[in-house]
């Protein structure tokens, strides 16, 4: 039996070599690549950068210790192991009990290593906590509120038009648009359970905790489209509670603001044109529960996709949109949603005033296009388990025909 052992070792060595080769020659098993949309290793803002720098310090310190300690450990194991039968039965070695000097030295060394980590840690704690004093004046304040399972963003300093006389702070959801180069101070709040606000490329997370006035700050160094996600377990659909941050240059940001501050857009009625093709919706397709909601086209350049979304859809069908607008009221959508300037003052769901100008819906889960919109309003529960809109469908007994859905989608898409 014992002879099997060396064989086994040889096999496993061979297997290990094979696996390494396979991985290296790229069977796409490149698990060490850390450049995804939510990477904390490729960052775009000073807060995340500070956090990354600190992380790198800890990596180096522990790596050096690991190499030293591990080296000695490996050497000891190798050097003093019993190799032969004779070794096995050798006289026991000297029964030494320890050496206080060695211990003290090692303790001293460990403390030193910790000091190397502690200093940048302390520095970073103060730096990442709040907007640096020098930049305070320039900071832009936003309140982010977590809901099961989506995010609401309130621009405290921007007054949006409701009608000629009434203004309210600007509210959007699930896509947070910020100006590049300005520190953003975000108050994080929640209406229900604990959520967490996390845009890895811009800053580490801060939890949204009931009855607690948390905040964080971040800054985007360059224009971009950043992925974010709720990072505290908050119930059924925690995994799909996502959001986006779009950072724009000052001019673009102001343009965007101007557009947002206006009330919802109305599609100008046009003379009926029998030749113009009406938007076609694929006959209702049943999606798999967790089928991906994002297309590859979108992937290539999300920021460009976002910019495209700002312009009105081509070939809008005013009639259809008008029907949709009607349905939006009659089908009780308004009980939860607000479309500023149109109908509805609901606050249980995301603000939909400019929903057509977003790239994603359902809290970053689905791309905002006809298919996904229709998929969403057809049966939100199938897309996002347990979500509150599905519950609303049950309570309010909302039933939509295919034609209703088409109209609603057209309406939603028109809301730029």
């Amino acid at each position, binding site marked *: *039996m014992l002879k099997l052992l060396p064989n*086994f070792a040889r096999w496993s060595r061979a297997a290990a070599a094979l696996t390494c080769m396979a991985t290296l020659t790229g069977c796409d*098993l490149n*698990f060490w*690549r*850390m450049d*995804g*949309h*939510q*990477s904390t*290793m490729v960052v775009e803002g000073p807060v995340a950068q500070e956090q990354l720098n*600190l*992380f790198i310090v800890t*990596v180096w310190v522990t790596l050096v210790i*690991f190499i030293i*300690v591990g080296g000695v*450990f490996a050497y000891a*194991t190798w050097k*003093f*192991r*019993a190799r032969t039968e004779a*070794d096995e039965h050798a006289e026991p*070695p000297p029964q030494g009990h*320890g050496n*206080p000097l*060695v*211990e003290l030295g090692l*303790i001293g060394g*460990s403390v030193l290593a*910790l000091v190397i*980590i502690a200093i940048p*840690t*302390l520095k*970073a*704690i103060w730096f990442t*906590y709040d907007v640096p004093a020098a930049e305070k004046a320039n900071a832009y304040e936003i309140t982010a509120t977590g809901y099961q399972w989506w995010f609401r963003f309130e621009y405290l300093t921007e007054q949006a038009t409701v009608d000629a006389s009434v203004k309210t702070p600007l509210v959007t959801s699930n896509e947070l648009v910020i100006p590049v180069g300005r520190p953003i101070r975000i108050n994080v709040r929640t209406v229900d*359970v*604990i959520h*967490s606000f996390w845009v890895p490329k811009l*800053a580490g*997370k*801060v*939890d949204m905790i009931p*009855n*607690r006035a948390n905040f964080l700050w971040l800054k985007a160094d360059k224009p971009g489209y950043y992925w974010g*996600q709720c990072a*505290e*377990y*908050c*119930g*059924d659909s*925690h*995994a799909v509670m996502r959001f986006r941050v779009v950072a724009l240059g000052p001019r673009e940001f102001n343009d965007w603001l101007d557009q947002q501050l206006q009330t919802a857009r109305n599609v100008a009625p046009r003379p009926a044109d029998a030749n113009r093709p009406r938007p076609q919706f694929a006959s209702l397709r049943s999606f*798999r529960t967790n*089928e*991906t909601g*994002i297309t590859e086209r979108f*992937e290539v350049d999300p920021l460009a996709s976002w910019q495209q979304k700002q312009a009105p859809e081509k070939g809008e069908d005013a009639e259809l949109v008008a029907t949709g607008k009607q349905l939006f009221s009659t089908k009780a959508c308004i009980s939860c949603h607000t479309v500023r300037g149109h109908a509805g003052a609901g606050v249980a769901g995301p603000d939909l005033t400019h929903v057509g100008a977003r790239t994603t819906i359902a809290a970053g889960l689905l791309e905002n296009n006809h298919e996904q919109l229709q998929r969403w309003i057809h049966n939100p529960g199938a897309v996002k*388990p*347990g979500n509150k809109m599905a519950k609303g469908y049950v309570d309010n007994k909302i039933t939509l025909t295919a034609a209703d859905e088409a109209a609603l989608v057209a309406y939603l898409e028109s809301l730029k």
Partner: protein
Amino acid sequence: MDALAKSAFLTKDEHVPTQPKLLTHPTTKGGLMSWLTTVDHKRIGFLYGISGLFFLLVGGFEAMLIRLQLMVPNNDLLTAQQYNTMFTMHGTTMIFLAVMPMSAAFFNFIMPLQIGARDVAFPRLNAFSFWVFLAGAIILNIGWFLPQATHGAPDGGWFGYAPLTSKQFIPKHSIDYWIMGLQLLGVASIAASLNFIVTIINMRAPGLTMMRLPVFVWMTLITSFLLVLSFPFIAIALVEVMMDRQFGTFFFEASGGGMPILWQHLFWVFGHPEVYILILPPMGIVSEILPTFARKPLFGYPIVVFSGACIGFLGFAVWSHHMFTTGLGTIATAAFALMTMTIAVPTGVKIFNWIGTLWNGNLQMRTPMMFALGFVWMFMIGGFSGIMHSAAPADAQQQDSYFVVAHFHYVLIGGSLFGILSGIHYWFPLMFGRKVSEVWGKLSFWVIFIGFNVTFFPMHFLGLNGMPRRTFTYDSNLGWNAANYIATIGALTLGLGIFIYFVVMVYTYFKGERVGRDIWDARTLEWSLPNPPPEYNFRVIPIVHDRDAFWYEKHHVEEIAKEKIELEKVESAHGGIHMPFASIWPFVAGMGLLIGGLAVSALDSNPAPGMHLKLGLSILGGVVMVIGIYFWSIEGNEGYHLHLDADGNPIEDPHAKH
């Protein structure tokens, strides 16, 4: 004066009246009844061990489902609900029902043997602890077998952050089971730990001073202290959520001014010491195994002991490092970050001393040694990622990401579990008189070792690449596909490894090679016993002359033999070996808690239908428990005396009292 007889233990019921029928002591030595009534610390150890291993499989199965779900993006093997239940139960099961009871198994089985005691200080309390543990385990898991819509297994995460656990957000009873289950597990742990503390402090063999205690015993002691001092906090926290859920109080209810953050503090005041509760016993085990197979004493014994105590103490001052992202403010964050870092020092000391133990040794690479060495490697890596977490700003990116998952599985599996698996291998011959085959043992080690690293190493990268934990699904565009796929393959390998491990153990139990006493040429007292050790453990209580007591005995054979004869004479003059009576009452009391606990958590408090049933059953449970405790207290704690023949077999003498 006759000191033995003076013990309050023996003399109290000096004039035993003829016992009423109800109080006759059970004497069966076999069958179910003997297990329900046993007060023998070794048998109780087995009960803990078997339950722990069983729940390791359960928790492992849950882990496999988790990994299979995450194998590919947008997978729908499990629903969101099922997945959330799965990781909650996986975490809770592994920590409270697998690793802790397996540690308790060693505390029970090994610790009294190592200190030269015949039993623990309070044998019936020990049995009670186990039955309460079992009741807690049953309540925790009962939801699997009940309607999922209204009951279901717990799904609030293993640290059950308020207010998600409130009735408003999870109206199902799943959370009630979680609360009650943990509460009972806490009772069990506190009772058991009090017992161990008294045992270690008071029941040591003569000559066994504290600074001669085997390191495993020291770690048992420190762990027990951590348990009795940390569990109260979670107990109170659980009481508070329970009140919130059942009586509408506002402890964690923001609408009434409550602060849910308080739950996090109360939980982690318990939670952090808890992780040291999970690691210190395996550290003790490894500190036994390394010297044995290096064939030299532990390097720097006093420092290892002291650093263990340090870790335990510091463990109470770092809890907020789990809350770095909750907006503690700069000062608190800095304080907890620095405190957390200091823990690296005593822990490092242990690592250095283990390496020092190997140095100049004569290392015999047997299976337990392989697991122990694996432990040191893996724990070190896990410790390093712990240190990375302690840098609070960096942790803002890592918290609740797979980087944390990687960290704690390195310390929990690579640490705790490896330590326990090595302990099983090490003491198997003592427990069953059979030895695991080296080939199969090493095979299982390598499969587990490789599987483990393949599973969890990539998770570091996943975490840094922004994958949050507790997500039942992920999109394919985030660069997480490869690592998740590999991790799942690794997990299957790991599962295979554990499977082999189990099969080998079962095989060995029935068919393994029989071995004699002390097959490892070990150093501590338990190896001086025949295997399996007799009910009474020690024919004569030994006198301890040195730190590695048995090693000393083996090198001073004649002196010890003479001494033993003397001691035996003295002891038999005092009536021989004193044994505690078996008793059914701890079991009865435990079952009362089970019934009451189930009733309280399973039934609705408001409107009527279930109300009477609930009240009735809760009262029934209470009554059964009180009956158990009442009879337990009046049956008295006297025992009987054993007399041995030359071979160490008890001579039948059923009437021998005292």
